[in-house]
């Protein structure tokens, strides 16, 4: 095809005209505009304010953290952060290490298990196929509190009580069923023709999974990875019940309880620790969100 400058200019003008047309059609009245923006700004403030206040509080000394007339800056300093990080108040770094280890292990193991299971239930028909899916669904219906005792008994039987790996397994029991469902749904959207083309091209069934299906399921994997990470990162009940009571084996979520005791709460330290806890979660989300693009699998098959 040959394109000359005149045709390009004409096309450009047409496109511009098209844009103007769209803009005028999408135009809101001033009042509607103000109302819409007002509502959105209010909602954003409501969402952001608690986090913002925790941030503000984290710079204040404990005594000044809760006041009758709150002020933004009142003897603000980094003392709380220094205290928390230096281990003066609680064994923050050890807890942090435990949490990172447990959350990462849960993510890796959870995504691996749910991806393989999800692929199996999406592509193969085998005895127990339906009951497996039903089991995953039912398992999500039990409240955590009910599960603590039976899971604790299982861990004792396995000799894993109080260990990091035991807790990872426990987190997987909650993360894997959900993630399997999620990934099965995602794998179902990848045409089976692509699997078959891969097999004809010389891939083994596992090769198809590894080299074709997983790369195409990146958005689904990203979401499940993030979900698994969060499951383990912020969880308190299982962690306080199943990990050993020693201070250095606690996770962050459990360890933070040090700051709020029966008679007094160290708001400043608690807020500073909370901010530090939030950072890795934000980082993981940032790493993962660039895979959250739609249409990755489009174009392979027609229609």
């Amino acid at each position, binding site marked *: 095809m040959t394109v000359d400058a005149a045709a390009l200019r004409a096309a450009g003008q047409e496109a511009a005209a098209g844009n103007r047309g769209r803009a005028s059609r999408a135009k809101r009245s001033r009042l509607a505009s103000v109302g819409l923006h007002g509502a959105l700004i209010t909602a954003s403030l409501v969402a952001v304010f608690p986090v913002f206040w925790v941030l503000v509080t984290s710079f204040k000394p404990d005594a000044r953290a809760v006041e009758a007339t709150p002020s933004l800056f009142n003897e603000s300093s980094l003392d709380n952060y220094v205290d928390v990080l230096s281990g003066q108040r609680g064994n923050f770094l050890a807890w942090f290490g435990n949490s990172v280890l447990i959350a990462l292990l849960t993510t890796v193991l959870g995504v691996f298990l749910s991806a393989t299971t999800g692929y199996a239930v999406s592509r193969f028909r085998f005895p127990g196929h339906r009951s497996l899916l039903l089991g995953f669904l039912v398992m999500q219906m039990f409240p955590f509190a009910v599960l603590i005792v039976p899971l604790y008994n299982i861990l004792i039987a396995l000799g894993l009580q109080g260990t990091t790996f035991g807790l990872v397994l426990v987190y997987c029991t909650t993360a894997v069923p959900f993630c399997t469902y999620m990934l099965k749904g995602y794998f179902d959207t990848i*045409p089976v*023709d*692509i699997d078959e*083309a891969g097999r004809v*091209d010389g891939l083994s069934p596992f090769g198809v999974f590894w080299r074709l299906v997983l790369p195409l399921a990146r958005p689904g994997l990203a979401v499940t990875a993030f979900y698994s990470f969060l499951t383990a990162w912020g969880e308190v009940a299982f962690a306080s019940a199943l990990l050993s009571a020693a201070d250095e084996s606690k996770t962050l979520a459990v360890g933070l309880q040090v700051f709020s005791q029966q008679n007094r709460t160290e708001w400043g330290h608690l807020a500073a620790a909370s901010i530090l806890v939030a950072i890795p979660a934000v980082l993981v989300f940032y790493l993962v969100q660039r895979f959250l693009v739609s249409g990755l699998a489009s174009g392979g*098959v*027609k229609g």
Partner: protein
Amino acid sequence: MAEVAYVNASRVFPGSPPVRAVDQLELNVADGEFLVLVGPSGSGKSTALRMLAGLEDVDEGAIEIGGKDVTNVPPKGRDIAMVFQSYALYPHMTVAENMGFALKLRGVPKQQIKDKVAEAAKMLDLTKYLDRKPKALSGGQRQRVAMGRAIVREPSVFLMDEPLSNLDAKLRVETRANIAALQKRLDTTTIYVTHDQVEAMTMGHRVAVLKDGLLQQCDTPRELYERPANAFVAGFMGSPAMNLKTVPLTAEGAQLDGLVVPLPRTVLDSVAAEGLTEVTFGVRPEALHLAGADEDGMELTVELVEELGADAYVYGSVRIGDASERFIVRVDSRTPPAFGQKVKVAVRDNSEIHLFHPESGKRLSA
């Protein structure tokens, strides 16, 4: 390159009752042959192809490629390449990666893959698009990539499952010719599945017609057209379809309205021996012509005239017995009859009629 054989191969889908999608298929394809499997939807043609690819189990019988029994060999061990109806390109790979993927899996050196991909791309006019992802290609280009992926591997058998059905009409005709030419050039055994009898007629060295999982006939396009083995094949091959009507028999031949079509003695004898009073009478639209006023002919009331440029097809009704039957006649496009007009129609040449058993549908005429 290799010959292919279906040896009484069946595929039975479980259910109640079980469905015999492909039923005792017995078919031999010679080395370098272009065989087309054609049939209406649900005829088992795609299942037969997938059995050959190893994507579908073979429940009975066997499948051989190059004289070797591959019934239980997985797809990757069969040395085949397949073009899917949906193309099934790998969306996360570029055109070049798509085409070279099979070679990469086989551990062919990178430079060699690059050369082969470049060669195939040149053949298919894809050189400009090698770095693009399938998403950024048009339907026709994706189709060519799918072809390229098959060619690059230099397999012993090409399998194509309706590769043209997603293209628009014009591109389809063009690509049809390209595929036929490519096959001739590569001289690779090719099994091609389609529901389009025009594709079957124009592309295949031989055409196998399937219906309900059963092979109806396998022959050259010309033989299929001129000597269909049964009424189904007669009606399926050819466009517009052959006029197939059940007509009463007289001592001289087949009795149509105002026209007795004389039948060969041998046919009449065999029909009489079976005690039939009716036959299924078939005549193609081009074997009928408008008769002059002084000739014998059936009276046809024109209901529709389709003008195609070179030809025109007249659709009209003829009374046979008590019923009104629709006939299609090919006429000269310059002087087509008008709507509602009554015209006389006669058979051009009595050797161009086909007779089939009214119940079994089997061919009667010699």
